[in-house]
């Protein structure tokens, strides 16, 4: 098979098994099977796992769920769908978990969702952004927390349409997430502002951007606005080449996910200024719930939370809320409890709901502009965009999602 051993998976699994005596009786702990790309995406998933453990410990310290503790069995898929599916089988059949959760990459999320559908198990997808997860390939057993590609694009288009820019260029990683982000952005922006024109598009391979050439190709088309979907190392390299070559001067940039500390922090004092982004202003967000979350997190891990931390914390909150409501771990009861479930988010904003119509949560994102403060990038002029305002009408959703 693959030569890359699931190294951390083995360790995590062993640790989790040691920590938990194998009691599968009804009164034993409720077990959650959490599959994620821990070794492939450590920048996002290390803070994720931290916050997951924090949320779990808080629930257990408060007496668990009707007296039963919750317990998580972690598995590392290494970013490979087939490994994720194998782990799912092992978690369900051997570890006797009540439900599955996790997923970072869209293709991994879709593979686990398909497994859940076939094996009739509940799957709470935390991170995968693909629209297909709840729409084109949605199924009865899969729920998703994060605002999807469509939702985040809709949030950005709202701002982009206010700009004077008419000639737009796009740059996105060449896989499903990047392709559908560009597709939605084009479609929604054209709808909002019919006279826009798309003059160039670049699709560098994920993690392999040839930043100099890409920047030059975009500049050559002389757009007024740029829609950026790259993240991680691609974003860093794109920004550095773009600033040296003056690509961002006198141009508006609208950028997906760039406000997330995972991607903004590494840029340091070279973080771009004035980009319209979706993200997470962890420092300035002082709602009651978030202040508590941030301080607890900082006390325990001695660093600030990243967006991954919020995603994990909210996933646990949703699962706990669902388990309290369902009163058991029968899959059908859990699905019924998930549909229309409301739960508090670590953002400290309005309660989030898992919509019955498409199993998408109404968790939102923050939208604002990037700026430099004390030598690093932050979000300013931000506001919370509630997810429920950025979803298509119920009729459209029904047409997008297989019914029955």
């Amino acid at each position: 098979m693959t030569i890359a051993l699931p190294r951390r998976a083995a360790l995590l699994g062993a640790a989790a098994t040691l920590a938990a005596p194998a009691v599968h009786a009804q009164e034993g702990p409720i077990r959650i099977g959490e599959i994620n790309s821990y070794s492939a995406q450590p920048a996002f998933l290390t803070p994720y796992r931290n916050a997951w453990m924090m949320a779990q410990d808080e629930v257990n310290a408060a007496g668990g769920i009707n007296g039963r503790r919750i317990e998580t069995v972690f598995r590392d898929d290494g970013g490979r769908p087939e490994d994720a599916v194998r782990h799912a089988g092992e978690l369900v059949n051997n570890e006797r978990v009540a439900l599955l959760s996790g997923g970072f990459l869209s293709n991994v999320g879709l593979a686990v969702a398909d497994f859940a559908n076939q094996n009739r198990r509940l799957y709470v997808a935390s991170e995968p952004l693909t629209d297909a997860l709840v729409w084109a390939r949605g199924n009865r057993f899969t729920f998703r927390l994060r605002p999807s590609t469509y939702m985040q694009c809709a949030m950005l288009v709202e701002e982009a349409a206010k700009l004077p820019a008419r000639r737009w260029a796009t740059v996105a990683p060449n896989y499903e997430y990047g392709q559908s982000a560009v597709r939605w952005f084009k479609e929604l922006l054209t709808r909002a502002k019919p006279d826009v024109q798309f003059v160039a598009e670049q699709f560098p391979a994920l993690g392999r951007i040839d930043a100099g050439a890409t920047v030059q190709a975009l500049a050559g088309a002389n757009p007024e606005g740029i829609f950026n979907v790259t993240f991680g190392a691609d974003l860093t390299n794109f920004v550095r080449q773009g600033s040296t070559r003056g690509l961002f001067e006198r141009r508006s940039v609208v950028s997906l996910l760039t406000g997330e500390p995972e991607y903004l922090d590494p840029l340091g004092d070279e973080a771009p200024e004035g980009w319209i982004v979706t993200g997470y202003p962890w420092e300035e967000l002082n709602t009651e719930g978030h202040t508590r979350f941030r301080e607890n997190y900082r006390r325990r891990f001695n660093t600030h939370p990243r967006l991954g931390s919020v995603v994990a914390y909210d996933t646990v909150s949703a699962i706990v809320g669902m388990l309290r409501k369902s009163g058991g771990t029968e899959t059908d009861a859990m699905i019924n409890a998930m549909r229309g479930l409301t739960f508090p988010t670590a953002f400290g904003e309005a309660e989030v709901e898992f919509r019955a119509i498409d199993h998408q949560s109404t968790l939102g994102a923050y939208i604002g502009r990037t700026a430099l403060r004390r030598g690093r990038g932050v979000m300013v002029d931000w506001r919370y965009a509630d997810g429920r305002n950025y979803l298509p009408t119920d009729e459209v959703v029904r047409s997008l999602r297989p019914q029955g």
Partner: protein
Amino acid sequence: MFENLLVQGLSGLASASSLFLVASGLTVIFGVTRIVNFAHGSLYMMGAYLSWTLVTALPRGHLGFWGGVLVAALIVGVIGVLIEVLLLRRIYKAPELFQLLGTFGVVLIVQDVALMIWGPQDLLGPRAPGLRGAVEILGVRFPLYELFLIGVGPLVLGLLWLLFHRTRWGTTVRAATADREMVGALGVNQRMLFTTVFFLGSVLAGLGGALQLPRESVNLQMDLAIIAEAFVVVVIGGLGSLPGAFLAALLLGQLQAFGILIFPKITLVLAFLVMAVVLVVRPHGLLGRPPASAHAAHVVEPPYPPATPLVRYLGFAALALAVLVPPFMGEFALIVFTEIAIMVLFAASLHFIMGPGGMASFGHAAYFGLGAYGAALLAKHFAAPMELGLFAAPLMAGFAGVVFGWFCVRLSGVYAAMLTLAFAQIAWSTAFQWVEVTGGDNGILGVWPSAWAQPKLVYYYMALVLCVGVTLLLRRAIFAPFGYALRAGRDSPLRAEAIGMDGFRIRWVAFILAAIAAGIAGGSSPMPRAASSPPTWPFRAAWTRC
């Protein structure tokens, strides 16, 4: 328009220079040691990380920056020597695939060590002092540092040329590249030579990584990102040829820069397409020479003996276990056993092509993947039942084997291996990019076995019969006259041809058979896993893990 094209070309030159630094080290190492060093990318990554640490720790300024870069490159050289002494010395004589796996182990170790030391977050290094800004070229801004890089490539090439043509050590290295055995016979200390060459190659890789600091962020993925490209450059240029590597780096840099203007979506495969074309037209790369090792100490394997009674009994015992135990196992164990059966066939098909066939294949996983896709596509688009899908899998893989094999079996050694890899990459990126048909990276979901095969136990027995059956057929082929002819062509090509055997046709048929067998393995696999997606291709995952 013209000024944009010019600057695009300059960007390509800068990329070419960085690529050349890494590829030159790789090609020097290969030329002398004949080792397929997958860990070269790790040395490059170490160079970047070490220079980040040094440059941020040392005082800002010219000395701090350039000193940091050079010291980082030298430290990487020492690390390279350690790797050579501790690991590579032991596997110089092993087949290419073993070297690939051994050095891939180093890649994993270095990744974990880097994660431990530097953490998961991308690191952005400082810009180079004195080269922060940009110059205007015909009104378009171009970074100074990129101009500097454009100069570094030819400079390093020149220095290496002087080193190899004006020093005694360099002359010995060139002699060893041309004919290693003869140099050994003349009394040159080969161990010392290999170690020093490895030091030089590692320093070049480290320097390449360190010089990326002002250009790119330092991250844990950069090792695998560079290694594939560096290999392509080395192979296109001709293994062991420095000017060839330089030429190939220029070619690839320009292709990349202008390719994205015309085909923004196929950057992933462009390099491999070029490599395939070059290898088909010039089997030893642009400036490579066929290895002149007619007198090389070729190790001829003894013929395969028929199985001894003990081995036979063990085989039957294993088969009996595989048949009798599963009904008493849990569902998950059944899934694992099914995968084992499939992997047995896949491994047997790889052995067939590499063992008796004597052809290294780095792209064998493609046929596994094509089989999986063949079955899944038929089910998805034509609602074909599983049985038909199982039939389509070997057809699809076999067809690819016919076409790819026709090109691949003409080459030998590492060139053949790289060409199989190029074809695998091309097939992979077709699957990846043809979203409408293959579902892109999301793969094909919802492909499940027919009703009768739904129970995991039934499916297991089906896979067992299919995979063990085909494995036994492959074994039969090895002991048939065809297998003997194949081995004759491997062990003594000249004599085999002289007695009238058509070596090309025999190897081609073997290639097709191996592809078909791998396709059957792949075709049986998407069903229990329910997801056929590009990363399913096992070696592809090892190459890039994206």
